[in-house]
């Protein structure tokens, strides 16, 4: 296939289904019907005091969420990096769980766990005879964001800690620095980049978070992201929705830009890292006790809400006998007025959308990844940034754009199903690209050339050599796209219509109607699917990383003198690191 096509098709896809819809929203935000900028929705919104309250709350909750995430994540990073304990690998993998746990299920878990009748309040009541109101408050939002982002912070800091050569600290000690001085002058400065980037990511995620604020904020608390949804899908105020979407997009792009700047500024290459000495955790010492207590509390914080959902789905909450009544309602072909669809159909829809997303993103992602790695052409970096932009743009704003173009705009003839699959494909595209791009970049060009010189045509060389070597990565990318689509709710809620539900949407509608049993059952089904995807991904990712390392190791032994000619090989980042951590 010619290089132009490899790059052109994916670009066209993004232009049509990402940039064009987003552009429609911006046009709407500026539309004044000839009455000047002052009449445009954007100006109207900017001069509205309500908007400024909204912005303030959005930023404030993001800030609190970030602080909470750091407070919760830092000790975890410290423990993972400096202690040795059984199941350490498991704990480390579990820090990835938030990435695949659909946030609406977590919101449901929070409602069940922290509710007035929830286990937390029951224990508090038993111990102190008091209950606390957590739900539908800033606290609930901040806690749920911390649930998601503490692992982000922990992973970022942990990664820096792991890369930190203990020889640095030891040489500081030998130069006369005390424990505290070493921490202040050596350890902290080297951890700082991880801390800053991790915190910034936490801030961005909290700033753009949707299902959590929607479900846990109640009527009183709303953020920019949620307000776009409310204006568009509840109040049908499209102009105001467009203005807010534009502002939200501007903020999300700006924050992502700052993140990239900081990430680049801070990238430190530390050669020849020795493994950190780790002390056993289960040995009696005050510090160790504190660490164990912290880990136990963390376990309650993370498992509490999830287990509450499981228990609730089998009727464990009311104290009655366990039963599968909730599952019966889910799997019965019973029409639910709440969602305008049978729940079973919602499951079917979700699976179909996810499959569609895989089928769209995989060939396009592969094409672009190959196109970008095979040729160095002008504007290559720019194009790559364009392709990664969906990562940085508010999904609600983008979903709004898709709604406009697929209901009344350019693609009015197409079904909402198509719109959702394409929206999910756009959102999954950057992930797929970030998995596949380094893979094809690392694929030695001479492998392909060797096949050609042995008589294989271009296509044969691709199928015989490049594809088998990329197979693992393609599978990882496919599962990424699949899980993202299954769990995605923001774009889906903007595009869904009665009779066209997905699993996360069903969970949301059921929990809004306080039909917790069915919501939990659906949430469990959703968690099982994403859980399976996660386990496969984890195993596969590990094996892939190992193989990449092995390939590089053999390459290193074979290529000592001449590696500089090849420009040096990139460090083998495991395919999970699509978040830049």
């Amino acid at each position, binding site marked *: 296939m010619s290089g132009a096509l490899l790059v052109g098709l994916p670009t066209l896809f993004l232009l049509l289904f990402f940039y064009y819809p987003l552009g429609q929203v911006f046009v709407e935000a500026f539309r004044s019907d000839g009455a000047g900028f002052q009449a445009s929705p954007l100006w109207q919104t900017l001069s509205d005091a309500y908007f400024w309250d909204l912005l303030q709350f959005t930023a404030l909750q993001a800030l609190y969420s970030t602080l909470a995430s750091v407070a919760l994540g830092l000790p975890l990073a410290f423990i993972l990096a400096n202690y040795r304990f059984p199941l350490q690998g498991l704990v480390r993998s579990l820090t990835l769980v938030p990435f695949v746990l659909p946030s609406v299920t977590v919101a449901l878990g929070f409602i069940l766990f922290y509710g007035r009748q929830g286990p937390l309040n029951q224990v508090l009541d038993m111990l102190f005879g008091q209950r606390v109101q957590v739900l539908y408050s800033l606290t609930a939002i901040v806690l749920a964001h911390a649930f998601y982002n503490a692992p982000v912070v922990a992973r970022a800091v942990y990664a820096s800690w792991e890369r930190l050569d203990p020889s640095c600290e030891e040489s500081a000690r030998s130069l006369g620095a005390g424990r505290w001085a070493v921490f202040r002058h050596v350890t902290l400065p080297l951890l700082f980049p991880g801390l800053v980037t991790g915190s910034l990511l936490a801030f961005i995620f909290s700033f753009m978070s949707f299902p959590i604020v929607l479900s846990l904020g109640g009527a009183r608390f709303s953020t920019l992201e949620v307000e776009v949804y409310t204006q568009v899908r509840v109040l049908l105020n499209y102009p105001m929705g467009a203005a807010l979407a534009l502002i939200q997009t501007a903020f999300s792009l700006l924050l992502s830009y700052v993140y990239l700047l900081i990430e680049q500024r801070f990238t430190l290459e530390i050669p020849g890292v020795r493994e950190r000495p780790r002390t056993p955790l289960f040995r009696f010492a005050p510090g160790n006790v504190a660490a164990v207590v912290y880990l136990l509390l963390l376990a309650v914080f993370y498992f509490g809400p999830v287990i509450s959902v499981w228990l609730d789905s089998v009727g464990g909450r009311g104290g009655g006998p366990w039963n599968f009544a909730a599952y019966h309602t889910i799997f019965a072909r019973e029409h639910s007025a709440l969602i305008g669809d049978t729940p079973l159909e919602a499951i079917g829809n979700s699976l179909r959308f996810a499959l569609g997303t895989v089928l769209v993103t995989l060939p396009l992602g592969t094409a672009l990844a190959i196109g970008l790695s095979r040729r160095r052409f002008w504007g290559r970096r720019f194009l790559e940034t364009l392709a990664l932009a969906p990562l940085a743009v508010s999904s609600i704003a983008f979903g709004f754009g898709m709604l406009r173009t697929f209901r009344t705009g350019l693609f009015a003839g197409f079904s909402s199903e198509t719109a959702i699959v394409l929206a999910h494909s756009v959102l999954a595209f950057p992930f797929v690209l970030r998995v596949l791009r380094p893979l094809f970049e690392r694929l*030695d060009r*001479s492998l392909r050339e060797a*096949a050609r010189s042995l008589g294989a045509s271009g296509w044969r060389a691709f199928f*015989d050599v490049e594809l088998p070597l990329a197979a693992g990565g393609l599978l990882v990318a496919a599962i990424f796209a699949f899980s993202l689509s299954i769990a995605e709710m923001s774009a889906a809620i903007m595009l869904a219509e009665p009779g066209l539900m997905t699993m996360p949407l069903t969970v949301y509608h059921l929990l809004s109607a306080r039909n917790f049993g069915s919501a939990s059952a659906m949430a469990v089904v959703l968690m099982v699917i994403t859980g399976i995807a996660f386990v496969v991904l984890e195993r596969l990712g590990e094996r892939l990383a190992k193989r990449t390392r092995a390939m590089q190791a053999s390459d290193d032994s074979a290529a000592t003198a001449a590696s500089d000619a090849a420009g040096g090989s990139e460090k083998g980042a495991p395919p999970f690191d699509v978040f830049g951590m």
Partner: protein
Amino acid sequence: MYLECNGLVKRFGETTAVDNISFGIERGELVSLLGPSGCGKTTTLRLLAGFEAADVGDMYLDGRRLNGLPPEKRGVGVVFQHFALFPHMTVWQNIAYGLRFRRRSDRSDGEIVRELIRIVGLEGLEQRKPGQLSAGQQQRVAIARSLAPGPDLLLLDEPLSALDARLRQHLRMEIRRIQRMLGLTLLYVTHDQEEAMAISDRMIVMNAGRIEQMGEPWQVYHRPKTPFVAAFLGQTNRLRGTVERLDGTGWVIALEGTDTPRAVFPAKAVQAALKPGMAVDVVVPGERVMPEAQGSEGQGAAGASSAHGQTVVLAGLLQETEFLGSYARLYMTGPQGRPWTIRVPSLQMPWFNARIGQSVVCRFATDDAVVFEAHDGGA
């Protein structure tokens, strides 16, 4: 010529990687393409293999025009610098890969692969993956794989640069053995002058996209055509001189700073169109410079003529010595302040008793030198 390249040019943006080069290779000949990194030798190979398209020029292999043919249609085998073995295939599968695309087959795939494995000495490793092989074994697989489809021409792109020194020497003899045994026509790209001289029937020295010199190794070494070739082959001992006149036996050149104010250089030692008054560089190979033992009488006075032309005597300040087994290297500051490195056979070392910092008197015969037009700052 079996392979003919005429006026090849390849540009990458502003840089001209290959600048109008022409050369040929006879059937069954091993020719090496020697030059520093970035001189265009690998680009030349990639043009022949079909991985890059030449901007200008033609390539013919056995009368067939290669230009425009895709790599798989050229009948040109390649051994890559890092071997480029398919990591997901076994040794056997790697070697057999090229046989999938054969048109005619008078012998079975298995027969061919088995024979190649025997030739390169990989028996017993057929089912290993490349990752489980040593670098030397990988190299053998790469060679066997490139031979399997029976290429008309084999290109080797620095095939030994990824190996350690001992293995390198062994494998280059292996390559030579296989090339002779199978009568292969082979173009061998390398930046290692010793390797090129050791292995080639003929060598082509390249610099900055152009061919500096072609010829048999001894010719190129002893009669370098340009200062670059001399320097690249390790001849770095230089004397600045001024041409005085041509007499019956050769050019008379004044050599400042030596004990031989003027010496006659025979015409065969001269690689430039000389004119009286011209500044020249006289280059002398390190092993042709003889140091004298301290305090011994010279075996022939300065300016004496011998069968090797006239003898030039000069003095240098000994900076460092390196004993290397069969010979020793002496580093000194020669006349005109230039660094000189000379090689002394090991057996002469016992009577050579100069100390670091002392002056050493050396001599060389003008026959052994090469005279170039002087160029400043260059190699």
